[in-house]
């Protein structure tokens, strides 16, 4: 443990677990005490109470826990209140206990009030989703501003050179990274979209029940495999295979890590993603539509190509956009399969690199949060977030509109 952390810890008079433990105990004690007191206030006849004794107990327990938790979160986000946080927490818990006990009377609607507390918890839990997004944006925005105060934003967005140098004078242009990202994503989608779409069509329109019961789970297994596994597959199998049988004989270079390696493997990863989304979307097309076409004497494939797919098109486009967002944000496959050289080339058998690879390489190992070489990772992260956010929101909007149409 570093000396800095030691001094930080001794600055607190009380270790943090003391107030937390005390709050928990006070809540439990408060539960039984309040229940007893409520029963006593009605002279032992609980029918005279406005709520069950246990509901009085619940109210007191929640009155202790919730304000304390709120104080904890607020306190932590203000840097521990200069070490006074444990005392503050104890105070809040005690106050919650006293006020709730004071309120006990036969007329007090404890259940309604307890339920209000519970609702506060529920709302707080849903707000975490918003807070996460806010956290993501601000954590990156803050450091990105630091980055742009040291490095010209025009050079970042428009320069075609990426060569970080820890002695300063780095060229940190995002264009070559975006090029690699988009090139790999394009290869991945070119492979995954037709395969995934045709697989979904075959499974939902043609496959016998036996084929489906075997093929569908097999494809779902692909979806459950962590991306690090795909990364290793790219590194030890696909990369060397492409190099030995395609790149070298055809004179395209001799690198095992390449855009093609990462793109193909990422394509495999995206197959189940595309197929399960398309499957949902194709199944949402009403059977009446198919019947209408078949009833006119169309073949199955004519029905699919000319009625089902056009009807499902918005949904399918949404699914492809979601897949693209996935491809752009994918990290482990490109870290292990694409290479580290920032290069803008058309040769798919050359190693190139992506935004995510560079985020990893700039933020692992020895990092100095004052240097632009480290801070650039936050600018890259923010760019990545904005691109995927745009794709996701647009895609979700299309898919949602599409679903409503057939509900």
């Amino acid at each position, binding site marked *: 443990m570093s000396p800095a952390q030691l001094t930080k810890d001794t600055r607190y008079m009380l270790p943090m677990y003391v107030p937390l433990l005390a709050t928990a105990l006070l809540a439990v004690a408060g539960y039984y005490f309040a229940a007893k007191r409520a029963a006593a206030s009605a002279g032992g006849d609980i029918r005279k109470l406005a709520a069950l004794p246990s509901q009085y107990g619940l109210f007191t327990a929640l009155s202790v826990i919730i304000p304390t938790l709120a104080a904890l979160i607020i306190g932590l986000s203000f840097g521990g209140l200069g070490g006074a946080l444990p005392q503050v927490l104890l105070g809040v818990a005690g106050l919650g206990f006293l006020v709730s006990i004071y309120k006990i009377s036969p007329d007090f609607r404890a259940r309604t009030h307890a339920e209000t507390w519970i609702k506060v918890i529920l709302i707080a839990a*849903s707000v975490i989703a918003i807070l996460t997004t806010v956290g993501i944006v601000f954590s990156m925005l803050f450091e990105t501003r630091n980055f742009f105060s040291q490095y010209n934003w025009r050079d970042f967005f428009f320069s075609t050179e990426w060569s970080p140098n820890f002695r300063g004078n780095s060229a940190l242009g995002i264009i070559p990274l975006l090029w690699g990202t988009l090139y790999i994503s394009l290869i991945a989608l070119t492979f995954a979209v037709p395969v995934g779409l045709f697989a979904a069509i075959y499974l939902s329109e043609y496959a016998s029940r036996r084929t489906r019961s075997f093929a569908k789970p097999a494809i779902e297994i692909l979806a459950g495999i962590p991306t690090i596994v795909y990364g290793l597959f790219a590194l030890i199998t696909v990369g060397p295979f492409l190099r030995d049988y395609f790149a070298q004989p055809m004179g395209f270079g001799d690198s095992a890590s390449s855009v093609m390696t990462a793109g193909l493997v990422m394509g495999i990863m995206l197959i189940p993603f595309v197929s399960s989304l398309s499957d949902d979307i194709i199944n949402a097309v009403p059977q009446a539509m198919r019947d209408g076409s078949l009833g006119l004497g169309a073949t199955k494939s004519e029905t699919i*190509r000319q009625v089902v797919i056009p009807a499902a098109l918005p949904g399918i486009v949404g699914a492809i956009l979601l897949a693209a967002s996935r491809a752009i*944000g994918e990290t482990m496959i490109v870290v292990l399969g694409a290479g580290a050289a920032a290069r803008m080339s058309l040769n798919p058998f050359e190693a190139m690199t992506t935004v995510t690879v560079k985020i990893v390489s700039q*933020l692992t190992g020895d990092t100095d949060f004052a240097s632009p070489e480290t801070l650039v990772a936050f600018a890259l992260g923010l760019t990545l977030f904005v691109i995927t956010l745009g794709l996701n929101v647009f895609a*979700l909007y299309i898919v949602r509109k599409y679903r409503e149409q057939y509900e």
Partner: protein
Amino acid sequence: MTHKSLLVADARTKKRNAAERRFKAYGLTAIVVAILALIMLLVSVFGTGASSFRQTYATVTVPLPEDKLDKSGVRDIDVMKKVTTIGYTKLLNEGFENVVIASGIPTELSRKDIGGMLSKEAAATIRDHILANSELVGTEATLDLLMNGRIDGYFKGRVTMESAALDSNTSPEELALAQALKDAGIVHTKFNWAFLTNPDASDQRPEAAGLGVAILGSLYMMIVVLVTSLPIAVAASIYLEEFAPKNRWTDLIEVNISNLAAVPSIVYGILGLAIFINFLELNQSSPLVGGLVLSLMTLPRIIIPARAALKSVPPSIRDAALGVGASKMQSVFHHVLPLAAPGILTGVIIGLGQALGETAPLLLIGMVAFVREYPAAYTPDAGLFGEASTALPVQVYNWTQRADPGFVERASGAIITLLIFLLVMNAVAIFLRRKFERRW
């Protein structure tokens, strides 16, 4: 109107039916491609990784002279600890040479080369063994010791006589001797429990590297993820599904959650680095931070199935509860939630599975460090889950970055372990779904 017979297919129909068959063939091809990809992936991983569950050992009798190992003569541990692994290596080399001589196998290798066939880890193994059993000093000890990665690789087919001739770390003579020792029963290959329990090992010792720390770290993180994300996800889905008014505000939360489920995982790593490590100053590389990051990432992925589970409980159940005078809150907690529990649980297990396999965000919060100490769940200094650790998928990444080819086998072996964990979790999820599935 001309009457065409239905019994004769006209030219156009034939053409259309051919198109139909082609279309169907494309579909079938797509399925075959997908399944072939799966098979190749699994064959590749299992083909390279399965051998990491077996390991080559040599049974060696090591002399333990008191004058070398215990200068105090009274088995004072602190004095005995002064003897480093270098001291033990000499005894080891001597012991192994004796074993070779006793076996009667002729060899021209020097004592140092013979000793070099054992793993560099072997000296540490025997040192730990002696420090734990100091009464053995003055006698001799017979132990199963790790052979080095090249010898091990030879028995697994990774190293050949040809490759050994070009390799400065081994030689064809060593491999020949190892083969002879194996035939004599001195060298043997057995199930490698140490792979699952040992900590990581340094660059030159792939044969000693294990997943102990990584499994422990992953376990701690899963506990953190479960404890934080389950209650929050359930509470959030109850609010959104049962209480939230349908307005812009809840619409925003909804879009937000869908988006968060699709945000690249590495972005969560940046978030964790900025908030948990730089701002809240929690310990780098700790399962606590890793767990919190994965938890934020998993939350939306649990909320979505949890809401679906709540939605699938028919409104009649709520009406029935409200009809006997229960409050809205009581109807939810007494009736709706228990009925939706299996669906929620299935979603949680699948979410945990995704979190277990996630790598990228953990790289950014420093879990990629080389950790040999088993992390404690709690220490007063580091707090709860605060000790540096690593995790299963990160260990895989870590091993792929090592130079020694022995680590490729280890990385694949780690993936097999990871996939088995995932398989078990998904099997549990499927079992739950089958067992409690309800048709309304």
